[in-house]
């Protein structure tokens, strides 16, 4: 075989010249974007230089956690859970009609569908914390603003996934129910709803878990929950309280994640 090797090409190129050029163009565009973005971060090297000292100092002052503070954060912790839970509950109720008008196959009219989509986009693209800013301006500081913020963000989240589930329903079942002479609402209730319900429940529990996390910081903008105490403690440089609060949040988040995973596993 080796004696007639000369007959074969001696070069191999994975990509043609054009493909290579396109790859280079992408690489350059990417590099330029990164360089441009880097310009925003004018690093204060003086700050950066002693960052590790600052961090060590902070860690030193955190230890030991101030256990006596625990009774003062108990109520805010419960409030955090309430904000997440009540906000999620309200979001479920609101998300169902929104999902049905945002799904192209149940909206009925183009205009209705458009409104539904608009609600989805508006709700989803504004972060819970920013919704918090708005509702604090409306209701004043406190958990009501937090609940409203959680609801405002979660409605779009849940409704979008449910709307997708509605759009993917099995049409065979719908036709079967329609064939019995059922009304539109009956079709909705007996053919579409059972297919969508598991998605709704799964999404809701998943979102509740996220909301616990969100509710832990809503206090930063005055919308209730443990974030208020955390912010205050940081501003007072009460680092041993900060550590205690962080531990409390850690436990809360881990437990809620566990609960959410367990419940979702059982439901599905």
């Amino acid at each position, binding site marked *: *075989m*080796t004696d*007639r*090797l*000369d007959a*074969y*090409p*001696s*070069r*191999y*190129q*994975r990509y043609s010249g054009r493909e290579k050029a396109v790859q280079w163009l992408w690489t350059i565009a990417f590099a330029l974007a990164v360089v441009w973005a880097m310009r925003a971060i004018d690093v204060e090297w003086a700050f950066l230089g002693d960052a590790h000292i600052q961090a060590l100092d902070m860690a030193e002052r955190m230890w030991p956690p101030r256990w006596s503070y625990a009774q003062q954060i108990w109520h805010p912790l419960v409030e955090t859970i309430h904000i997440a839970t009540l906000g999620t509950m309200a979001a479920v109720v609101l998300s169902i009609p929104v999902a049905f008008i945002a799904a192209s196959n149940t909206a009925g009219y183009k205009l209705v569908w458009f409104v539904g989509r608009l609600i989805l986009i508006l709700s989803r693209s504004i972060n819970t914390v920013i919704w918090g800013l708005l509702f604090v301006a409306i209701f004043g500081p406190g958990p009501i603003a937090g609940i409203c913020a959680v609801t405002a963000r979660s409605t779009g989240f849940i409704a979008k996934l449910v709307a997708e589930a509605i759009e993917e329903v099995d049409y065979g079942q719908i036709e079967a129910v329609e064939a019995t002479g059922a009304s539109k609402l009956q079709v909705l209730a007996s053919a579409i709803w059972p297919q969508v319900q598991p998605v709704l429940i799964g999404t809701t529990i998943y979102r509740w878990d996220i909301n616990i996390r969100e509710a832990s910081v809503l206090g930063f903008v005055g919308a209730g929950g443990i974030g208020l105490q955390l912010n205050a403690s940081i501003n007072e440089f009460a680092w041993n309280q900060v550590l205690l609060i962080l531990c409390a949040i850690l436990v809360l988040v881990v437990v809620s994640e566990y609960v959410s995973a367990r419940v979702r596993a059982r439901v599905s």
Partner: protein
Amino acid sequence: MTEPLLEITSLVKDYGTGRRALDSVSFTIRTPQLVGIIGSSGAGKSTLIRCINRLVEPTSGSVRLMGADIPSLSSRELRKMRRQIGMIFQEYNLVERLTVMQNVLTGRLGYVGFWTSVRYRYSEEDIRYAYALLERVGLAGFENRRADALSGGQRQRVGIARALMQRPKLLLLDEPTASLDPSTSRQIMQLAQGVIEEQHMPALINIHDVTLARTFCDRIIGMRDGKLVFDAPPAELTHARLVDIYGAYENDEAGPRQEEPA
């Protein structure tokens, strides 16, 4: 008597579970020949082959190839040794998203540095050889096809070309036809037999199909429960000996086969 090409002495492999996968296996290959290893699933065929290039670490015993004792090699030496041992797999083990040529060239990875391989700066001779091999295995013109667009038989041909690209001194074939239909299996076996003859190298093949083993192999080794229980030319593989190897042996098509832990 000349230095043997491959000499395996008292090879033992224990998996952590307490099961002895290989129990003191010894045999020697002195001339370029195709050695078929038969036995029911779990008999240790796959472990035996993988202990030779140390994809599975043997527990004790020696594997001598070209004057080196493979189990005692350092990882750097092992890399050098592995590039001289070609291996062909049941599931082809091609990189699906790469093209045929890219897959064939991975056979040279052990010979070049990282950056050379990343930029595909192989020597002209290597590139020519890769094209020649593709023609030899019947895939001329397929070089820019992606591996996931090929049929099973074509993939195994790429697998053979990749192994030969290493210019190996020994070829290991781990059930190369088990995922193929009967007629493709024969074609692949013919191809494997052909290239092994052309290159005058010894080869070990795990094979569950006794008929194929009889047709293509120069010598057959029978394994049972990790022990070597048969080692002779195919002509001596009588029904009685098959019963020794397989327990109750009923027909020429061996029973169902499962993947062993590798």
